[in-house]
């Protein structure tokens, strides 16, 4: 087992990773392939999934404006959430990085902790907060800022806020990991050369955390585009996104082939965006960091 001869590993690594590999091939690769195949099948309202093959599912998803709206809405949601995560998350990470222990660990725990709490719980909280009788509206009315409750539940705005809450910890994580690699003396170097605090921040600190902001954005975008629970609970029936639309087809209309085609398109889009942007980011920044 514990051979230390790295030059000729032989079968050992494959034996060790074998069980996991088999499980993954059988339970990940195969189901995904089956889904791909499913997306090409014909569906009839009366008889269910047929054994004939067709491209009509994809054609429908791509051409029907109903789905077009859904894709646009999803993309819009993803962009908005990503932007908001950057605006909210990046300053917070910088503030965190400048804190002293033990406050730093505590605050980091509070910011990252919610990731370990089920998304149902978090979204329930937003439902309560954003509802017409919710805290947010009650506070606004008490302060006489508005007379009637502002509709936030079942709106795009409400979805964006709630989803940002769910995903901003990922942005913080990414930028934080980046900041750990920075040499703190570089800021002092900038100051000693005559740069004001602001100039040093703009010219020295910000450019160095760009890779972290970028990889965080990729993660947040991908996760918002494929989000299910939050859009389902806060967006409601009328504001569908890709994930909830797939759910509708699968567990509502039972048009599995159509649902599968939506899923396949979502997967391809996800992988393309993540890998494409990661490559771009790597190329752009590889001369800076090891």
């Amino acid at each position, binding site marked *: 087992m514990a051979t230390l001869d790295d030059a000729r590993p032989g079968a050992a690594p494959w034996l060790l990773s074998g069980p996991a590999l088999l499980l993954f091939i059988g339970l990940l690769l195969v189901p995904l392939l089956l889904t791909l195949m499913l997306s090409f099948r014909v569906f009839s309202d009366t008889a269910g999934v047929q054994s004939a093959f067709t491209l009509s599912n994809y054609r429908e998803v791509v051409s029907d404006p109903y789905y077009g709206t859904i894709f646009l809405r999803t993309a819009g949601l993803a962009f908005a959430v990503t932007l908001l995560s950057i605006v909210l998350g990046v300053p917070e990470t910088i503030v965190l990085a400048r804190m002293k222990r033990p406050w730093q660990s505590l605050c980091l725990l509070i910011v990252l902790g919610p990731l370990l709490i089920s998304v149902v719980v978090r979204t329930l909280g937003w439902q309560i907060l954003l509802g017409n009788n919710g805290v947010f509206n009650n506070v606004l009315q008490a302060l006489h800022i508005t007379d009637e409750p502002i509709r936030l539940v079942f709106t795009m705005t409400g979805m964006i806020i709630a989803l940002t809450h769910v995903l901003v910890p990922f942005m913080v994580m990414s930028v934080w990991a980046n900041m750990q690699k920075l040499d703190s003396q*570089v800021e002092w*170097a900038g100051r*000693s*050369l005559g740069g004001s605090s602001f100039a040093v921040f703009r010219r020295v600190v910000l450019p160095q955390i760009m890779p972290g902001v970028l990889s965080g954005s990729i993660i947040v975008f991908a996760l918002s585009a494929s989000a299910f629970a939050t859009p389902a609970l806060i967006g409601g029936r009328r504001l569908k996104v890709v994930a909830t639309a797939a759910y509708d087809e699968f567990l509502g209309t039972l048009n599995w082939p159509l649902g599968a085609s939506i899923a396949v398109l979502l997967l391809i889009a996800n992988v393309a965006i993540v890998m494409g942007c990661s490559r771009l980011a790597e190329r752009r920044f590889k*001369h800076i960091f090891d």
Partner: protein
Amino acid sequence: MAFLTLQGISKRYGDFTAIEQLDLSVERGELLSLLGPSGCGKTTTLQMVAGFVTPTTGRILLDGRDITHERPEKRGIGVVFQSYALFPHMTVAGNVGFGLEMRKVKRKEREARVAEALALVRLNGLGHRYPKELSGGQRQRVAIARAIAMEPELLLLDEPMSNLDAKLREEMHIELRGIQKRLGITTILVTHDQVEAMTMSDRIAVMHRGTIAQLSTPYDAYERPATPFASTFLGRTNAFAGEVLRRNPRCAEVSVAGATLHVPHEGRHVDGAVNVYIRPEKLHLANGDARVRGRIATRVFVGNQWLLEVETHLGKLRVAQPNHGAPPPEEGDEVGLDWTDDDLRVLTQDTAGGAHGHA
């Protein structure tokens, strides 16, 4: 008037005192080293001069100007950091020109001055590279070029050579000193490496536990240490405890292990319990007239010299003998040792407590 003056500087963090009552004057154009072990406060002193740390008490005057509470970016002081602290996302030229950019120097002039600074540190033509692509020695040069490009009034070096290997470090000592002299910039060098301090400095301030133990030229610091700490930190020395019997105008008669030694006191008032010091290179093997006899316990060859440890009735003595060709007697042999009384030093034991063995 001195170019840089520190008056009554102290720095306290809660109960902990990092620097206590520090007074220092640095002359224009000189290179002064702050030398001491880690924790002695030398880096804190540097940070206060640079403006990264505010003194608890005291004033700092630069060319007559009180800069004690001035922000770092206004002081016009060049700093070379131990880790070099280069901007990884900028090219070498971008790094070196940053200080000029902050001063709104026009692009053409900036490029010319950057090229000049790079030529001075012998990095011509590397302006377009990124720090990641350079070797450690090259990165250090960029850090130096960056600090001097803006023609600062004062240059601060925080252990700039500690990350270089031994050979490169030796070369850089000479090169950096050459650059400093050529430009005539007043410089403070912080280091724990005594060879570095002695090679490069006009004067050395030996620091110990937040104060300056001794401030003098390298020669005086080595040959005439004023405190036990200074004498044991710089170079190696032999030390013996003794008792002052009598004082003459020039020397004190000190009783050490039964024998009486005549030690020049250099005007210092020494009395009672004292330590007598003599450097290993000042002891030599004597065949006939030996003041002390002993047995060689260890013999080590270092290339340009032999280091011997000789057991005598005074204790274990360290002797350094230049390599003249013929090796000294072997381990276990009996030898005689002799010295000139003028090479002895004496300091009161109170000055920092206790007799020391060797250092």
